[in-house]
């Protein structure tokens, strides 16, 4: 029995965003899918702890994130060396490369420490509020804010973006071109 009718469908509906978050965290598409699978199984097992009507997506993101960090700790114990550096180098997915622009952005994102990367993804892309992100990451709202701000500064440095408000014609046309290609 599900905690409420349609629980299964609601879980399935969050899979695209769960996967996107998992890829952002793990920097690896295959590992991301394993993480999503684990998160779904865990979510199913502990569905009694979910309160219908509250934010299901945030609940699932929390489960997935916990799974990611517990796997990371386990791996660190297994491989007591520069596992992070190796993962970083293996993380390119040639089949998924978009425009050069986006590829550069992904590389830059992958250089961020996990805590900053997850914060900027949750706030800037997944559509969570600072309060929700703080709950997902089990930290204070101010911590999320400062992580987002550090992440943003670091990305600007890596991508050598100056003058953040240059919303010129080039930027707009780039966006239109991109949406045409991804449509």
């Amino acid at each position, binding site marked *: 029995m599900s905690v409420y009718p349609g629980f299964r469908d609601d879980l399935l509906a969050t899979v*695209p*965003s769960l996967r996107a978050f998992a890829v952002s965290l793990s920097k690896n598409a295959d590992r991301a899918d394993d993480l999503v699978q684990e998160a779904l199984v865990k979510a199913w097992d502990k569905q009694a702890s979910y309160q219908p009507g509250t934010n299901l997506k945030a609940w699932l993101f929390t489960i997935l994130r916990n799974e990611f960090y517990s796997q990371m700790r386990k791996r660190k114990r297994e491989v007591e060396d520069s596992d992070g550096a190796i993962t970083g180098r293996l993380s390119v997915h040639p089949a998924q490369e978009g425009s050069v622009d*986006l590829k550069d*952005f992904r590389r830059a994102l992958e250089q961020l420490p996990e805590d900053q990367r997850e914060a900027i993804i949750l706030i800037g*892309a997944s559509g969570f509020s600072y309060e929700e992100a703080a709950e997902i990451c089990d930290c204070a709202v101010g911590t999320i804010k400062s992580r987002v701000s550090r992440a943003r500064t670091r990305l600007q440095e890596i991508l050598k973006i100056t003058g953040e408000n240059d919303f010129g014609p080039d930027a707009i046309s780039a966006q239109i071109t991109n949406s045409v290609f991804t449509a």
Partner: protein
Amino acid sequence: MNYGKPNTHRGPDKRGKDSDPLGANSEIGRKLRQYYDDLITEDIPDRFSDLLNQLEQKSSAKTAGNKD
């Protein structure tokens, strides 16, 4: 495939603040959403809906089994 309820997670529309450091005027913000939307629009492998079917079947079997 129809995944039931439509998703409303595309972009941070609910935070339309001007001061948003990752908003429409931020290049980082736009790139971030481009990167994420690219991931979100990927096709979802069948393994996830298969998995949920299995989980559902398993729990309804368990419920039925508990009756004797």
